[in-house]
Structures are given as structure tokens and as C-alpha cells.
């Protein structure tokens, strides 16, 4: 027994004494190799990369990046018409941080979403849309690279562009989104989608780039996700799954403004919508969620009436900036505040009222008691009065959440009247 023990020890001792070289590769070698490989991959795509960005603050945006081996990158984006067709060159570099990272290290369209100055693109003062411009590589295959923002954890997915996805690709994507946005010109708010033998209310919010499904299946169900625009369709950030229906993208949109119908293809199943006066499903909790969110909800255009955006001409208020629905504004009242500039300073004006949350899932605004703030003059005040009259309609509004902090309010009395907040 003891002999065995001694031999055993001897073997252990000898093994420990064995000369061993260093590991095959040093960490620095590995890191250099990985960074070089990523750089080669980025530069190697002849047609560049299509980038789908989903900032932490919500929404989905499409970019095109072309990297070269001189640390330069050319960018297009679907943020607005100009940046979708005009390229901007800036610089990038790869850096070994905790994970190998891609830095977009001088300003381009991508940075606008992350800009803390709200005069650049809106968003919150100090944080913008909580987006990113330095990303860690999470995974990569030949044609797909997944990255995650180092600061705000936004998602960026790069897909190698195909030969037919040239420099005009983002311009086409932007036009595509504008085309889809025509569905807001249908008279009624509700669009009933029939696909694979099932029915849903669908809302495509082309401002926030979100798509939402509302339906009853053992009670009310809601599914919302961001989408990124492609030249022929939209790609959903998260797939919509309902039994055998799985939708991860829509393409081949056909908007028929005469019949107020929309048809589109998901995978290989065609779906079509009809414009309806009544909802399929009502979200009973949505008014409460919105009311207690402690968020100042903004509307840029006020009510859409009978398919006409900005129907009450709120942008006609001199130096109009926006409308905010602010629950619990002051003195026991909620407010619908209109913001405008007067002599270079931001002013506000809007009705004080109370909000009733009914058990059948409605907002009813009542108890108007004068206005907060400073009147923008007779013409502007008249516009605000007309919006207020609609706002205080006694039958109230159904509420449909379209994203993290975005909600549509649809008049119960007349579903041709609705207002979009984000």
C-alpha cells in the first residue's frame, strides 16, 4: 500500500517537473488575430454592410456602412430623406476592450441617435435615444455580425450587402417606409389583418418603426416589436409567434388607398388588411399603463381625422414645437400642453382637466378648468380650443400601445379620429 503511494507520488512529482512550453498562443496574439480578422471581414464586403440598429431607447433604424482599410467608413441612414441618399464619411477603428470592439470614432449619422443634445434629433436631454456608437462583437459568421453597444446596450446587426444592394439601397428603404406610412391615410384607425386563417388588429407605426398585433386569445393579447426597413419590406426585431403563425418579416407591400387595404407577404404567406370601424380587441389595462408611466407623452401632429394627418393644423400654431399629454401636471389636474417658441423662449399653453380610467378600457378626459400657461395669440388659441373640444369628447378613447413609450388614442365615438403619442 505504502509502495503504491510512493510510486504514485513519484509519478505526480515527475509530471509536475515536466518541462512545458507556454500555451500555444499568448492572449495578445489571440486578440491581435481576432481584431485583424474582424477588420478584414468588415473591409472585405465589396458592397458594404446593411446595419440594423435598435437603440435601447426604442425604434429601429437602417444604415449602410462601407468600411475601408484606412479606418474610414462611408454611411447612409434612413433617419431622413437627405441622409438616405447623401453619403457621409467618418472614421472607425477596432479596439481590444473587454470584448473586441468596433468604434465609430468620429461623427456620422449613427451618432445622431446617441446625441445628448435634443436639438439634434430629439430624445431626452442628456441621453438622446440611448443609442450607441461603440459596439462589442457578440458573434459573427461570414455574412452576419451581431454587436452590442458598450454604453447603452443597443443592438446592431450587420448583414453583408448583396450585389444588388448598392449605394441607393437606403434611399429605397426610406421610400419604402414612406410608402407604408400611407396606411395612416385610411379613414378608420383599425386595420384587420387576415393571415394564415387568423385575424389580428395590426398597427404599423412608421414614425417609431414599430409594428403591433392586437387580438383575443384567452383574453387580450398584444405583441409589439421594432422593425428595420429594407428596400422591399420590413424586418421585425422579434418574430411574432401565434401558434403556427410565425412572422419575422413582411415584404411586397401593396397599399391601396382607394379601397383602404394593404397586402403584404410574410415568408410565403400573403396577408391582407381591411380598414374597420370597430376594434377586434380592446386593451383594458393600456390606459392605466400609460397614465402611471411617469413619462411626458409627445405628439407632433395632434389628431388624425379621416385619414388626414395634422387635421386640426396644430403645426399652424406660430412657432409650434409639440404637444404633450402630462398626467398629474399641477394642482390636481392633468394637462394637454402645447409648446411653442415666443421671442426665442419656449412657452406653453393648454387645457387643465381630469382623466377617468374606465373599467371597459377607456380614457375619458373631463372637468375642463381653464388653461395652464401663456396663450400663443388668438389664432393659435383657436386651434388649441378645437383640439381641446375633440380631446374632451365624452365617450373617450381606447388606448393601444405601439412601443415602449408610444401609445395611440382612438376615439370610441368615431374611430376615424385618433392621436399618436410617443
Amino acid at each position, binding site marked *: 500500500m505504502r509502495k503504491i503511494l510512493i510510486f504514485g*507520488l513519484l509519478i505526480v512529482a515527475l509530471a509536475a*517537473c515536466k518541462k512545458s512550453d507556454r500555451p500555444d498562443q499568448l492572449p495578445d496574439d489571440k486578440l491581435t488575430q481576432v481584431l485583424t480578422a474582424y477588420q478584414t471581414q468588415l473591409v472585405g464586403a465589396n458592397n458594404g454592410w446593411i446595419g440594423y440598429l435598435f437603440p435601447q431607447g426604442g425604434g429601429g433604424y437602417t444604415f449602410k456602412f462601407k468600411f475601408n482599410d484606412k479606418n474610414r467608413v462611408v454611411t447612409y441612414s434612413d433617419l431622413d430623406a437627405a441622409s438616405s441618399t447623401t453619403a457621409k464619411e467618418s472614421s472607425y477603428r477596432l479596439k481590444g476592450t473587454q470584448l473586441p470592439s468596433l468604434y465609430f470614432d*468620429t461623427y456620422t449619422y449613427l*451618432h445622431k441617435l446617441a446625441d445628448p443634445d435634443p436639438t439634434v434629433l430629439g430624445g431626452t436631454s442628456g441621453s*438622446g435615444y440611448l443609442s450607441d456608437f461603440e459596439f462589442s462583437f457578440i458573434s459573427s459568421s461570414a455574412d452576419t455580425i451581431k454587436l452590442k453597444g458598450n*454604453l447603452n446596450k443597443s443592438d446592431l446587426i450587420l448583414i453583408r450587402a448583396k450585389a444588388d444592394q448598392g449605394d441607393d439601397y437606403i434611399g429605397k428603404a426610406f421610400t419604402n417606409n414612406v410608402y407604408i406610412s400611407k396606411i395612416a391615410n385610411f379613414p378608420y384607425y383599425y386595420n384587420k389583418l387576415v393571415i394564415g386563417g387568423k385575424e389580428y388588429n395590426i398597427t404599423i407605426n412608421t414614425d417609431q418603426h414599430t409594428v403591433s398585433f392586437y387580438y383575443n386569445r384567452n383574453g387580450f393579447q398584444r405583441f409589439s416589436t421594432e422593425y428595420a426597413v429594407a428596400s422591399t419590406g420590413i424586418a421585425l426585431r422579434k418574430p411574432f409567434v401565434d401558434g403556427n403563425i410565425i412572422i419575422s418579416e413582411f415584404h411586397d407591400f401593396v397599399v391601396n388607398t382607394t379601397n383602404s387595404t394593404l397586402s403584404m407577404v410574410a415568408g410565403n404567406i400573403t396577408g391582407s388588411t381591411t380598414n374597420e370601424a370597430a376594434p377586434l380587441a380592446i386593451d383594458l389595462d393600456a390606459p392605466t399603463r400609460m397614465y402611471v408611466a411617469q413619462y411626458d407623452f409627445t405628439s407632433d401632429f395632434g389628431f388624425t381625422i379621416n385619414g388626414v394627418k395634422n387635421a386640426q393644423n396644430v403645426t399652424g400654431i406660430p412657432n409650434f414645437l409639440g404637444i404633450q399629454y402630462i398626467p398629474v401636471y399641477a394642482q390636481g389636474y392633468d394637462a394637454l400642453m402645447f409648446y411653442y417658441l415666443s421671442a426665442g423662449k419656449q412657452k406653453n399653453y393648454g387645457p387643465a382637466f381630469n382623466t377617468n380610467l374606465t373599467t371597459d378600457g377607456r380614457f375619458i378626459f373631463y372637468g375642463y378648468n381653464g388653461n395652464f400657461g401663456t396663450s400663443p395669440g388668438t389664432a393659435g388659441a383657436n386651434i388649441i380650443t378645437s383640439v381641446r373640444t375633440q380631446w374632451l369628447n365624452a365617450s373617450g378613447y381606447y388606448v393601444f400601445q405601439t412601443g415602449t413609450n408610444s401609445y395611440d388614442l382612438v376615439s370610441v365615438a368615431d374611430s376615424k379620429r385618433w392621436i399618436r403619442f410617443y
Partner: protein
Amino acid sequence: MKIKLSIIYASLLGMCIAISSCKKETLPDTPIVGLGGDTFAKGPIDDYIKINFTDPYNIQVKYKWDPYETSYNKNITPVNEANVIPALDAVIKIWAEPYKKIAGDDFLRKFSPKEYVMYGSASYNSDGTITLGEAEGGKKITLFVINNYDRKNVANVKQMLHTIHHEFAHILHQNILYPREFKLLNPEWYTASWFNTSVADANAQGLVTPYAKAAVDEDWVETVSYLLVEGQTAFDTIVTKNPGKAATNLRTKEAMIVEYFRSAYGIDFRALQTEVKNGIVLITT
């Protein structure tokens, strides 16, 4: 037997140590990634910086994004490349060249910050204020809001150069302290919540800007920067508008500054003011 066994164990252990300590050590020759700073292909902006900052004054200018040069947990954006050279032109004409002319190259080489770092947006603070510039230990000056730089906008140019002269004045007083009497002029107004004071109120209290109320050091450098960038005329206007103790204090501060620059650094402050003024005219027209 037990003793014998322990001897065997001990000798085995000794053998093991002996073998492993015989192993020859060779150091790896792989360079450490990122050691000595990031590398990237140089462009026209990099050439401009080398010619105008690095070669003459040994100053490094970082304009590409580096999260670790400032508060890495804040939402700040990098610079727009189009604004880098125009902004640096203003730094040369309104800060470097006036000092060079009055105090000489050696003075600049000795005291100039060794690093300028540029960011596109402002740095937003949790108290609702924004930071336009930072200086660290006389070594580094960080400039924010470069993306809003517009050389035709006099207020904008003055705002940026005010920051630089402010930070450079910090470096100067960190090397040679201003007169101690300065600290006794208006200690009652220094407060952490300086941003709740309007410009008019600060002036009425005998301070050139609200930020001068942040601390006595800030008061000193704000007054220096104000006299240089906003200029003597603007300073005189404040004094005229706020007679009494405020005016007396402001004049005392001005006299202390002129005397400090003469005795500490042998600089004619009045001549420096003129040079800065000329530089501003040159850049903004």
C-alpha cells in the same frame, strides 16, 4: 518507518523544485495590444495637428473617440471631422499665438497642457448643467461641444476660447498661486449650487459669471478668462452697472490679476488682452 517515509517525501519534493527551477525563461516578443495608444491610418487632420501642435509645442490632440478620456458612463458623442481644424485654428490664433507673442515659445512649451481632447457634444450633468470643458492637473484640457463650433458666431467662438483660457489659467495658478488676499475678497458667495444664480445676480455680487461662484479657484480663472476673451470693455460695463462693493471687488481682482501675471510670469497682461482681442477679430471675420 514513518521517519523514512518523510525523508522520501522530502527528497521527492526537493527533486521536483530542482527540476522546475531549472526551466529557462524566455520573454514573449509579442507587442501588447494598444500599448502606446491606438493606431490608425493618418489623414489630413492628423497632419495638421502634427504641424501645428505636436511639433512646435509637444501637444497631443485627440479628436477620435476615446471613452476613457472623460466620464465613460455619460452619453457624449465624438466630433464631426469638419469642425476639428476650424476649432483648432481658433485655439492657435486666440490662445497659443497671443501667449507666444507676449511670453515666448519657452513659456508655452513649459506650461501648455500636453493634451487636448475633443468631444462633439456637451457633457450633461445630473444636476441639469452641462460641462463645456475640463482640465486635469495642468496636463490635459478637454473641449466639448465642438460640433456646434461656428467661427462666424462670435459668441460661440468666445465661449470655446473662454473655456481654454479658463483651463490654462488653472494651470498657471497651479504652478504659482495667486495672491492669498484674493481668497478673502468674497468668500460669502462661493456655493456648490452656483448654477441657480443668474449672470446679473452674479455680477451684482462682484463676480464676472455665475460659475465664478463655484469656488475661489474658479473665481480667479473666470476673471482672468473674462478679461482676456470677453475683453476689457465688457468687464468695464459690469463694473459700471454694479457700483459699490461689487465694483470695488471687481477692480481689486483686476489689479491683482495684472500684478500676478507681471510678478509670477513676467507677462504684460494688458498687451496679452490686446493680442487675444486681435485673434478673435482675425478668426471671426
